[in-house]
């Protein structure tokens, strides 16, 4: 008793169909719980179309800045290294370094030596995002330039691309340099780049960024797309400047001078 060509093809065809169907059925059953689950943003979260910050430098003294920097760095477990390998999310700079394009030979002494808070500008056209080879740094729909530390490979292209020096590289393990761990936020590891994230983790819980919270009103944070927001009000009523606007990255941190 043999099997002819026609019967063999029939059996083979049916087996293939059964095999494919069976595999997909098993797959469906296995995945069911994950697909049935749902994720959603926290309803308490603060949202905006375009987050932006206005820094009223007239209201900030050296001690205010120190307090703000400390609040930020403590919240985010930023290490205090103190050498050229320093890591910083927010720091101060003199006018001359902050706004090199606007540096006249003679300016008021007070402005010249006033501390200016520097942080990531969360640009509309972020150069860092364009160069990142792994899409570890990306721009969210609400304008925040965010980092996915899980994907950063430490190539530092973003640091080369950022015209504001807002990014720092972890040359070594930052853990030993974190004085007081905030156990609700991770640290970083050796070989990744980090920067200010406009406190996305706080916004998601309905809180203002850490720096804004301790600034006594000198830092204003809000929606640039909303004409009635506090940032728009501050920009309407005061003359403001931005860092290196001629580079076309459209920074979203404004300075009232």
């Amino acid at each position, binding site marked *: 008793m043999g099997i002819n060509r026609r019967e063999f093809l029939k059996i083979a065809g049916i087996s293939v169909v059964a095999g494919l169907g069976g595999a997909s059925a098993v797959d469906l059953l296995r995945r069911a719980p994950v697909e049935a689950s*749902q994720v959603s943003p926290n309803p308490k979260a603060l949202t905006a179309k375009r987050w932006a910050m206005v820094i009223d430098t007239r209201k900030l003294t050296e001690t205010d800045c120190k307090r703000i920097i400390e609040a930020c760095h403590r919240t985010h477990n930023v290490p205090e290294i103190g050498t050229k390998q320093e890591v910083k999310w927010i720091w101060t700079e003199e006018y001359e370094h902050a706004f090199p394009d606007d540096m006249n030979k003679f300016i008021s002494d007070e402005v010249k030596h006033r501390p200016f808070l520097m942080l990531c500008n969360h640009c509309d056209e972020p150069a860092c995002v364009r160069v990142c080879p792994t899409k570890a740094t990306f721009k969210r729909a609400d304008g925040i330039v965010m980092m996915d530390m899980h994907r950063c490979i430490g190539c530092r292209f973003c640091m080369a691309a950022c015209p504001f020096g807002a990014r720092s590289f972890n040359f070594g393990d930052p853990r030993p340099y974190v004085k007081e761990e905030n156990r609700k936020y991770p640290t970083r*590891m050796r070989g990744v780049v980090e920067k200010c994230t406009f406190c996305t983790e706080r916004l998601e819980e309905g809180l203002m960024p850490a720096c804004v919270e301790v600034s006594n009103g000198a830092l204003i944070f809000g929606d640039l797309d909303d004409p009635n927001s506090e940032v728009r009000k501050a920009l309407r009523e005061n003359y403001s400047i931005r860092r290196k606007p001629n580079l076309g990255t459209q920074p979203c941190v404004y300075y009232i001078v």
Partner: protein
Amino acid sequence: MYDGGKIITGLVVFVGLVTFPLWSNVGRAAKKPDPKIDTPVIQQLAEKKCIEPKAFMQAEHMKILNDWRDSVVRDGNKLYVSSSGKTFNMSLQKECMNCHSNKKKFCDECHDYADVKPYCWTCHIEPKEKEKVAWASIEENS
């Protein structure tokens, strides 16, 4: 057979060397992992249940953690509604490890056995294991 003695001795030595991993480990089987969930937080739960059924968590926790991480970091989603309809925070440090504060006995127990080395803890801060001493003494007393 020429040089039979040498060949057979050589073969015996060769087989001995090749099978070294097998016979050297006879009777030294690694202890079966025995993860513990008896943390103070879990003890106080009215219903001792994880976010999803136990069997599912055992098989798929790594996938859930991956999904959560992308969802939180990329899409800003913070809340997870489980198949039982309960809502949880998607956070390793703040949610998972809040209950499972015994990383050594909960995570490492199986990971060491299976020789997998997840790199969660290079950045995420592991829970302080002072509690471990606390429940060790509870176990001794009971």
